[in-house]
């Protein structure tokens, strides 16, 4: 018996916010805003203290380029022509190609005022990505060093947390000092604190939305979640983003209460990780054609909640270091950001085999999944770290897994016939037939 479905009302708002984000990026200069580019993972609430600003994030932009097949193909070829290997990060390759061509989906490639990156956080590509940008366009570039920890053995000691917190806090101060000089703007602590409050609220709301996917039937499917995630990423430090997420949370809650499904047929529930195959979303549609519902993904959940002391994903109260109250000054804000990044932040903590294993087991159990499907995104070594370990752990627990190799942004790396064959065989082995 099919579940009832209905269109998501917030979807148009998500689309509008996404479009507005890129319109604002393209118009940043004429609007007198600062335009900054960098990797999406990092304490970028820091940037809001510099006044009107747009953050031009690398990875979502790579996905945006991938959504334009002709531009994606041309960008990848331009990156090849500049001597970069086919096997390096697909997001970076699309971003660079667009920069080399000076073409974006909305006009010329937007030249940032400066670039910033959290190095070492997850990929060896991090620093080089924006160094290439800095060298090509001649824009200033700043790197902060995130100490890569191995969280495999659980909580850090208090001494380590204190040491790492101090290490990061000093770097944040130094970055602010550097950027004040580069931009000739005075830093506004009030804007920083406000952005941080919004970011924590956004994390909480997105976490609640992801958690509601545990319902049967799941109120949303994963393809929709990817689209809904974009404003969470781009607007998470702003009031508009919080307002959008609050509306979305309420709507999803009402769908759960009313038994409204993300897709009518939910014959099986699956975890799908890691990065979406944005350049070949027909892969996900093919999976859904079996009545298989993709209900959860670490990649998506990473934007909400946090890693708890027991190593599980969950909703973590904001401003732990301050007893739950928001920070009152820059020092308190920076120390709380550092504390979060070290102990709680899903993106920064998840680039460890053990976290991938633990969360895979947790998600399959708590989201009531029948199996797990992994997209091996060529070139994404950070994202791929620990995926095979997770697969082994799931296998030991009798959870069937499927691995398929494709790409987030380069269609040349997707053998669609082979991938669909693999999906067919996997679904048939689970007793699922095409609808």
């Amino acid at each position, binding site marked *: 018996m099919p579940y009832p479905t209905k269109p998501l009302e917030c979807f148009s708002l998500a689309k509008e916010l996404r479009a507005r984000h890129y319109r604002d990026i393209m118009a940043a200069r004429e609007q007198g805003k600062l335009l900054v580019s960098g990797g999406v993972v990092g304490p970028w609430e820091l940037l809001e203290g510099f006044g009107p600003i747009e953050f031009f994030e690398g990875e979502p932009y790579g996905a945006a380029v991938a959504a334009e097949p002709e531009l994606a193909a041309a960008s990848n070829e331009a990156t090849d022509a500049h001597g970069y290997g086919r096997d390096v990060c697909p997001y970076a390759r699309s971003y660079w190609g667009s920069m080399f061509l000076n073409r974006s989906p909305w006009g010329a490639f937007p030249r940032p005022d400066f670039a910033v990156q959290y190095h070492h956080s997850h990929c060896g590509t991090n620093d080089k990505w924006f160094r290439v940008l800095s060298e090509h366009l001649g824009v200033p570039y700043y*790197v902060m060093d995130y100490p890569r920890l191995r969280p495999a053995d659980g909580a850090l000691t208090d001494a*380590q947390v204190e*040491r790492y917190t101090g290490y990061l806090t000093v770097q944040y101060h130094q970055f602010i000092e550097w950027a004040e000089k580069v931009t000739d703007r005075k830093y506004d602590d009030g804007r920083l604190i406000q952005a941080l409050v919004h970011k924590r609220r956004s994390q909480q709301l997105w976490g609640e939305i992801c958690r509601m996917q545990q319902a049967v039937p799941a109120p949303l499917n994963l393809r929709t979640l990817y689209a809904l995630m974009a404003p969470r990423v781009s607007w998470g430090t702003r009031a508009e983003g919080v307002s959008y997420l609050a509306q979305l949370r309420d709507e999803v809650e009402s769908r759960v209460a009313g038994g409204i499904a993300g897709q009518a047929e939910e014959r099986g529930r699956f975890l799908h990780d890691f990065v979406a195959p944005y350049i070949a979303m027909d892969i996900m549609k093919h999976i859904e054609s079996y009545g298989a519902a993709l209900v959860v993904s670490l990649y998506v959940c990473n934007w909400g909640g946090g890693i708890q002391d027991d190593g599980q994903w969950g909703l973590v109260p904001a401003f732990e270091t301050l007893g739950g109250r928001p920070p009152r000054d820059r020092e308190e804000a920076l120390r709380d950001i550092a504390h979060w990044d070290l102990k709680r932040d899903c993106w920064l903590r998840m680039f460890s085999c053990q976290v991938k294993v633990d969360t895979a087991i947790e998600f399959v159990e708590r989201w009531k999944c029948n199996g797990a499907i992994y997209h091996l995104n060529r070139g994404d*070594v950070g994202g791929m770290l620990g995926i095979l370990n997770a697969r082994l752990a799931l296998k030991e627990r009798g959870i069937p897994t499927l691995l398929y190799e494709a790409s987030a942004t380069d269609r040349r790396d997707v053998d669609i016939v082979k991938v669909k064959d693999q999906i067919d065989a996997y679904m048939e082995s689970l007793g699922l037939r095409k609808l």
Partner: protein
Amino acid sequence: MDKFSQWVRDRHNYARGWKAMTGGKVLGYFCCYLPEEIAYAAGVLPVRVIPGDEPQDLSNLYIMSFFCPYCRNCLGEGLKGSYDYADGVALGHTCVQIDQTFESWRAALSPSFDYYLPVPGSPDESGELKPFFAAELGDFQRAIEQWTWRAVSNDDLQRAIDVYNRHRKLLHRLYDLRRNDPPPLSGARTFEIVLSSMLVDKAEHNMWLGELLDSLSTSAKRQRPGPRVMIIGGENHSPELLRLIEEQGANIVIDDLCMGSRYFWNEVATPSPLMGEGGGVSRETLLSSIAARYLDKPGCPVKDVSNFSGRPRHKHLMELVREWKVQGIFIVYQKFCHPQELDLPSLNKLFQENGLPTCVLELDTTLTIGQIKTRAQAFLEMLS
């Protein structure tokens, strides 16, 4: 076969023999960012984990096919049992791919000791990194002490620093000999000597290396004349690669390789005894000196990060070019090694702007001898 070649070829037997003779523990380590001095001070033999030379598929369960073959094969060697004598493993963080090797080793082989050392990703431009890293080294030392049931005194640490510094000095003398034209020994032979030093007791290696240097200083023997080339890049454990290139007529006179000069280039600055209370050197000072050595060493691409001076590696490479009178450059990297690959366009540009031809070789599990020969021949003909 001389002592150094023998050590490389019989490395596993050497470590087993060392254990039997001393009763000490062996620590397998990956990459050259682990401060071995600290383990050595506790009587541990640090042994670098290197791949075998044959294809294997044991690591397929843990590491994907589009991760670098070096990382995959290091794990493969572990799974094969080649390092069954290693009581523990440790990694000073460099790249994500070797992290996967380390984590999979832990998961699959459950060694009695494992340690992951966070290593800052950039040189100490702000002055904040050194105290941070020194504190990390303190944690590492305590972990080693607990593992070995042996307290490491400041004298132990100082002795280990001295042994390692002497080793670095000797290798510098060896490299200095290659400034001569033609040099007295080949690049392949030099590489093998450096590689062997990562597999055996440093004090013993120092003794043999000192004797070799004495004999070289009195010998009139020279390599045949040929173009002076530099080899740079990432992980490569095969002297055979360098031999193949040199057989085509080149003299490899200098390198910037993980298992070459980057391993030993700078020393731990010897702290003044006045720096410690009571006339001795304090623990903090010793660890701080070690921290500075590892942060300041010529960086691999992952660590080649600066907020103020672009790409520090470029400056270092051009210094090597000038000092060793280099005419051409071989750039080698493991297939799927992103940090090295990401540096390629900028390196090619750097060398092109300085009138230095380059030949890029991508490495896989086994050496593609015919291809390497052909490409090296063509390149060297162009240089000649």
